């Protein structure tokens, strides 16, 4: 490709520029909304495909660097495209291709003015995420990071006339900025006091920090990126902000934006600090396990579909952190090969989550568009009205529940394999902790399975549960248009491809790993893995073949079907369901989403802050009431808010609005400064 003179980095920058131009032209074309949905969003999807292609290309190339003559005087902007950035570009491009296609159909009904603004914010959001991945200095990184935060804030508050959405947007902006401050401080620490020229990532890689300062940089970065990723206790914005946005935007926020935080963590910990310590790994493991269990347990309590999916994003961030933590513990204790496997598992799950969570949010968007319903307790029987959406949603639900042969299973399987490397460790505590963390992963996986049986069973299966007040509207609900279906089909295809050909993904991630840590998978894994077999360490230790698996199950199913038809018959009669001798059953007697979560409330009761009103049998006006809240609000956020209000009320004592008082303040400040300097 050198002959043409185009490098992957040029192509990536070109795609980013195209996104920006598309965004601006959306603003210009706001009087012609059909052009925005008909041309600009599909073009944006093509740019996304180009970004993904660039990522695939750049994975095999040496890192490309560029210096842009922009920015402040003497502080130019640096760009770099290495395998880690390339992998995340594949994720960004692949997921946003499907989402942009879906958006082209989804936003058709939107008014021109709002649509123009939305188009600008949407494409700016995509471009800023790509720039975050390409940035090679702290300045460029922070600019892109803040652009991403602001554009996503405006996307979240698209329906800003709703007070709750404004509130959710504010909370999001607040925590995003607390996180950004921590990230900036972390960059400051990593710069190592080498003056203003040392703001590039290259200088930070060179700087040798003492264990104290490198731990400080790690903690700040972990806090800052964790706030963006939604790890506990910094997660409270996520279940409010993600559902507030229009559904394709929710898909991007959950599927892609959270991953930029994972990217930042990996970049800072493995690349910029470099000298990974195992204690950090244990911290990340503990936070990851807590985040994961918290996310899924609260997801089980939700009846708003999009909010439930947002809680699952928290859970999946926890799973990714679990993989990262295991990897860091192994690397810190001198087992880089096992550490590489953990990192690969974490990054694999990052990609998988982008695909299936994007798909599920698009499915939720289709339901919302077609029927106007978000509350699971009002849904039911949608599989009959929107069979195609039901099919795609089923694939997403099976993938997120980590069921073979889809993609979610592969990454969790790799994590279990990493945990089983524990006997090589000499540190007894970490060695016996790792399998226990793996057990929490198994618990979370099984709970996710329960949660998606609930979602799918209540939304798509069963009979419609219309509330009493609303007259039944049989016509509502239909499959979305062709563009929207294409978007969902693309992501569903991704679930299959990533699940059925895991070796290619693993070998691709191995390159990322080698470029970051200098170590990759063992020789047994590299020789044993091919299109049929996935071998993480050595072929006699573990192997998995999704293709054989799928082929055998499908063959056995077909054989059974044919044998039953050949030797018996396929006769069917239809009648009413069996009513257990009580003919007055109504659809309202099916489980609601809240009822389905009742066993979990029973088993994990102390985790929730519950207000319940259970009417007694002799209550003349029985009213069932259940409210579940997050304990974090009460022990962390509300006290912090009260503290901030108290402090600001004290500071307000200084303010009287009279000019002479302010002159006296200035005078005292000057005196104090003179005394010190």
């Amino acid at each position, binding site marked *: 490709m050198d002959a043409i003179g185009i490098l992957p980095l040029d192509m990536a920058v070109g795609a980013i520029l195209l996104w920006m131009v598309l965004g601006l032209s959306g603003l210009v074309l706001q009087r012609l909304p059909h052009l925005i949905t008909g041309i600009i969003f599909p073009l944006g999807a093509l740019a996304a495909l180009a970004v993904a292609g660039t990522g695939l290309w750049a994975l095999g190339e040496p890192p490309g660097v560029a210096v842009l003559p922009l920015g402040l005087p003497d502080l130019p902007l640096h760009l770099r495209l290495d395998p880690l950035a390339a992998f995340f570009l594949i994720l960004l491009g692949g997921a946003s291709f499907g989402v942009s296609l879906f958006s082209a159909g989804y936003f058709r009904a939107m008014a021109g003015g709002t649509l123009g603004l939305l188009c600008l914010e949407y494409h700016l959001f995509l471009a800023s995420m790509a720039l975050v991945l390409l940035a090679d200095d702290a300045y460029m990184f922070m600019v892109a990071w803040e652009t991403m935060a602001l554009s996503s804030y405006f996307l979240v508050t698209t329906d800003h006339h709703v007070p709750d959405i404004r509130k959710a947007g504010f909370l999001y902006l607040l925590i995003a900025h607390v996180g950004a401050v921590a990230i900036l401080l972390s960059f400051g620490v990593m710069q190592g006091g080498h003056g203003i020229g040392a703001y590039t990532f290259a200088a930070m890689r060179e700087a040798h920090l003492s264990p104290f300062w490198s731990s400080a940089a790690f903690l700040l970065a972990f806090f800052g990126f964790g706030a963006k990723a939604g790890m506990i206790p910094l997660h409270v914005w996520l279940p409010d902000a993600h559902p507030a946005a229009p559904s394709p935007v929710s898909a991007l926020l959950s599927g892609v934006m959270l991953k930029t935080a994972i990217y930042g963590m990996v970049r800072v910990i493995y690349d910029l600090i470099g000298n990974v310590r195992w204690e950090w790994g244990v911290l990340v493991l503990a936070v990851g396990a807590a985040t994961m269990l918290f996310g899924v347990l609260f997801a089980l309590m939700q009846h708003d579909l999009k909010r439930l999916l947002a809680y699952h994003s928290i859970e999946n961030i926890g799973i990714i952190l679990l993989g990262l933590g295991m990897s860091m513990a192994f690397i810190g204790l001198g087992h880089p090969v096992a550490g590489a496997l953990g990192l690969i598992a974490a990054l694999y799950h990052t990609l998988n989550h982008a695909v299936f969570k994007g798909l599920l949010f698009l499915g939720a968007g289709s339901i919302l568009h077609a029927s106007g319903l978000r509350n699971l307790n009002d849904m039911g029987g949608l599989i009959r009205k929107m069979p195609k959406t039901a099919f795609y949603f089923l694939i997403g639900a099976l993938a997120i529940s980590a*069921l073979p042969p889809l993609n979610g299973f592969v990454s969790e399987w790799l994590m*279990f394999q990493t945990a089983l490397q524990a006997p090589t460790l000499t540190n007894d505590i970490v060695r016996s902790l790792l399998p226990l963390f793996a057990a929490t992963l*198994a618990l979370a996986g*099984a709970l996710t399975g329960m949660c998606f049986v609930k979602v799918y069973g209540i939304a798509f299966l069963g009979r419609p549960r219309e509330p009493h007040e609303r007259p039944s509207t049989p016509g509502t609900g239909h499959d979305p248009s062709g563009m929207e279906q294409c978007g969902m089909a693309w992501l569903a295809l991704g679930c299959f491809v990533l699940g059925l050909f895991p070796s290619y993904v693993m070998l691709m991630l191995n390159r990322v790993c080698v470029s970051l840590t200098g170590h990759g998978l063992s020789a047994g894994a590299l020789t044993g893995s091919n299109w049929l*077999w996935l071998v993480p360490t050595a072929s006699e230790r573990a192997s998995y073949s999704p293709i054989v698996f799928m082929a055998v*199950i499908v063959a056995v199913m077909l054989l059974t079907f044919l044998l*039953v038809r050949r030797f018996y018959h396929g006769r069917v009669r*239809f009648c009413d369901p069996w009513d257990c001798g009580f003919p007055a059953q109504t659809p309202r007697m099916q489980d609601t989403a809240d009822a*389905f979560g009742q066993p979990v409330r029973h088993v994990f009761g102390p985790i929730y802050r519950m207000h319940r009103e259970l009417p007694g049998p002799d209550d003349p006006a029985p009213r069932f009431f259940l409210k579940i809240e997050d304990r974090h609000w009460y022990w962390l956020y509300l006290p912090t808010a009260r503290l901030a209000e108290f402090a600001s009320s004290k500071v307000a004592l200084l303010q009287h609005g009279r000019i002479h008082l302010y002159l006296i303040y200035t005078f005292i400040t000057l005196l104090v400064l003179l005394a010190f300097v």
Partner: protein
Amino acid sequence: MENTNLTLGILLQLCQLLLVVLMAPLLMGWVNQCRAWLQNRSGPGLLQPYCTLRKLFHKDAVLAHDASPLFRMTPYIVFGCMWLAAAIIPIIAVDLPFSPAADVIALVGIFALARVFIALAAMDIGTAFGTLGARREMLVSFLAEPALLMVFFTSSLISHSTQLPHIVETFAHHEFVLYPSLAFASVAFVMILLAENARIPVDNPSTHLELTMIHEAMILEYSARHLALVEWASSLKLLAYISIGIALFLPQGIAGVGNWNALPLAVAALLLKLVAAGAGLALLEALIAKMRIFRVPEFLGTAFLLAVLGLLIHFLLGA
């Protein structure tokens, strides 16, 4: 030699596929017969499950008006999953070509896949009992799955492999060692087996009292060939679980790599173990009373803790 071994392996794999699917109802019949004897009844006879299946296959399927395609596909999916699961567990010889495709973790995944589909099918018709069964089944599953994985982890850490053939090879064909960690794991495994196969004390396979049912509540709407496949799948599941137990805790007698002469002995040993396991299961069910549904978390929590104890003992004692 390599080629003949592979051919023989594939032949053996096909034999095991046929064997398990034909034998599973017999195992069910044996357990029921033992139960009948323990309850001082004469019992329906060993071959009753086959007669029931034959009767069901001849009947017309009755479906609810609202049944979706998912409802009609589920019996085939569940049957396929369980058949695969039972066929890849080495119970006669370790040379099973399909076995490396799914290790113990993937095996848990197969069971989970089948369970999710049957729970979804239960919610498809939209009756109160179907959703009740699905909800309870998922409760049992999220408690039992981590415990089962812990049991598998213990044996994987001892044998340094998650593949069942290698685990069996380690336990059966190397010097005989008593593993204290496996003793804990085996008790945990029996508890999980009872819970996952809808046996007493967690569920009662012969109940028809709707409020206490779990598994039966989920399949209330199935009839004829669909019901036959679901029932056949549950007998395959029982066989698969007992096979896992045999492979992990009683692997003596299973033919090693390339050791084809040991096959007749291996088949005899397998039959003996299955007869003993079926009788043991019936005895356990006769001795324990069914527990309330919300005692199940304690029961399975105990199983999980036992499995974790086994794991920690492995780390402490190195065995």
